């Protein structure tokens, strides 16, 4: 088996095709643990993992916590409301104080892009990025790819449509970085106010003029969360009109390949970026994404610890 040489996992941009394949295949084998009656292995026994979440998160934080616990690591959760952040302590000071308690891994979510690189220069434990600003969300990218691989058995040559606010989406960036490295083609659609300049230069990426164009013959349709509070006043008129042009529904899904996968990183605005019938329908892989999230995060924790599978 190939060797994983990275101490941190901050961005899929920093990983090679082989690194990504290794993480996905490890995740595939981790899934077996999650289906056992006793869902625990001693792999990371004695390791301490701190989940440091500067932004609210339910899914990702819980998923990392369960992943750590299933590998027998001790996990501690810190959220801003209960931490020193509200007392005006800098990120570096918080991290150095946590480091003094000898954690093996810090899993962090932070609103500022690049914060994990900043931290990696200051501390000597492993860092896993659970989302930084609009930069990357590598565990989400990996779990999305694992879910696609479940369906297609491969990740090369897929046509993946990503629809929504690309500019502010770390999920989109991690998927673009990962999928294009593994040989898939990414088609983006969103209002021009939400498509960042030069995004087509990130890999085999095509920016489409309309959502229909992106959906055409797609193997995978990934919808992004639209946030009225973020896209606010200047990026779109309102959720109603957004939904009209960039919402997924039983009609426009027909443009995609028959039985194409429908994905969403959550949380979903039902009736905005996708209709409830799409969320709950046969083509939806959304809950499978969440399920795979635990296995992917187990694989990430396992590899940054440099351990060996029993």
């Amino acid at each position: 088996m190939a060797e994983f040489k990275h101490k941190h996992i901050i961005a899929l941009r920093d990983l090679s095709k082989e690194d990504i394949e290794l993480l996905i295949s490890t995740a595939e084998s981790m899934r077996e643990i999650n289906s056992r009656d006793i869902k625990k292995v001693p792999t990371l026994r004695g390791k301490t993992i701190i989940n440091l979440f500067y932004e609210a998160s339910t899914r990702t934080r819980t998923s990392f916590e369960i992943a750590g616990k299933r590998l027998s690591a001790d996990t501690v959760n810190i959220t801003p409301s209960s931490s020193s952040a509200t007392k005006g302590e800098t990120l570096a000071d918080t991290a150095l104080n946590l480091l003094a308690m000898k954690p093996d891994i810090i899993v962090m979510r932070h609103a500022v892009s690049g914060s994990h690189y900043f931290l990696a220069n200051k501390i000597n434990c492993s860092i896993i990025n659970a989302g930084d600003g609009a930069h990357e969300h590598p565990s989400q990218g990996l779990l999305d790819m694992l879910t696609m691989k479940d369906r297609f058995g491969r990740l090369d040559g897929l046509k993946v449509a990503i629809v929504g606010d690309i500019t502010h989406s770390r999920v989109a960036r991690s998927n673009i970085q990962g999928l294009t490295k593994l040989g898939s083609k990414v088609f983006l659609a969103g209002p021009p106010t939400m498509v960042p300049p030069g995004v087509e230069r990130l890999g085999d990426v095509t920016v489409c003029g309309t959502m229909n164009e992106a959906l055409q013959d797609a193997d995978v349709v990934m919808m992004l969360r639209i946030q009225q509070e973020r896209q606010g006043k200047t990026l779109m008129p309102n959720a109603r009109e957004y939904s009209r042009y960039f919402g997924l529904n039983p009609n426009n899904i027909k443009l995609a390949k028959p039985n194409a996968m429908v994905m969403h990183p959550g949380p979903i605005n039902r009736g905005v970026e996708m209709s409830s019938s799409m969320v709950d329908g046969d083509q939806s892989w959304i809950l499978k994404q969440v399920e795979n999230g635990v296995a992917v995060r187990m694989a990430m924790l396992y590899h940054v610890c440099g351990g060996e599978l029993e």
Partner: protein
Amino acid sequence: MNLLIKNGRVIDPSQKIDGVMDVLVEDGLIKELGAGLAAPTGVETIDAAGKYVVPGLIDMHVHLRDPGLEYKEDIISGTKAAVAGGFTSICCMPNTKPVIDNKTVASYIINKAKAEGFCNVFPVGSITYGLSGDRMSEMGELKESGCVAVSDDGKPVGNSELMMRSLQYAAGIGIMVISHAEELELVGEGVMNEGFTSTELGLKGIPRVAEDIATARETLLAEYTGTPIHIAHVSTQASVRIIREAKARGVKVTCETAPHYFTLTDDAVRGYNTNAKMNPPLRESADVAAIKEGLKDGTIDAIATDHAPHHSDEKDVEFNLAMNGIIGLETSLPLSLGLVDEGVLTLNELIEKMSCNPSKILNLKRATLKAGSVADITLIDPTIEWVVETDKLASKSKNSPWLGQKLKGGAAATVVGGKLAYKR
């Protein structure tokens, strides 16, 4: 103390002189230029063979942080950095605490610089009281207290009427208005140039047009009122074009750029390097090319540093939280000499942009080696190679994107008012 600077290549655009000769300084003034001057008794002689001897360099855009923000820089450390970089005069921006919007603060700076500084300091007062953006400062008093210009540098005067009236009022008093051209609504929460790099790094971009719109407004206001205006830190292709066109129409607009805008692109931000974070932000290669073109064809009149010292606590943080700005006094000359090596500027043109034009724009009455004038002289060593290192920088702050890099050229000696203020 009297000085004889021997055998240097004297370049003085004010007299159209370029040749190897000696410069004799007596009682703080230029006494004589000529070949083979004899050293009167008691005169210190400086061998300038292989060096350029030029009118003292002038940096018309410096943040000295004194009063109020002395933990970043003060008048002593800032002027020390200035002479180490070859500058004999600097103009300091008014965003101090308190703001330079009254005689007391202006006088404090002038007096402290005279008593303890290493070079001439000309304060720039604020356009609006307290940099509030809502009413004019007492520009008359500011001028009488020694301010050479007014500017709200660091932020624009957003209210177009107030800007127009300020231009008119300042023209009546005879003080230059320096504009920080930026449309804040387009900047929003942006932290770097909007482009491919911001897309890849997931950082909020600042579109170039935020600067361009403001530059256009300023030139149109100056055209309408028939008054002069100086645009600070020009960084974009379109701003250069707008200023070029305005000049062609006879608008009394001048402008400056800074060395980082003709040497770096937003690629320098990669790695979330906060020492590449400034405002305006580093742009793209097409902008760098346009800045060079503007320098070459005379659209851009001056090179100024926008020396903006910040404490490491303000830079060694997450990218979005880092303060804008970099220090520049000690790296400007080598970086600008690069323009001569590249063939963008002649040496004579470079001296114009780093000395004569700033003096002309702000009416400083410096930048000449004519007999009888104040002996502000810079000796430039064009060949020396040196590495930018934190412990060797005179500035209190070390926020430079060139740390650890080797630069070529620099000040060999800096003479301020006839006194040797710096010698390498």
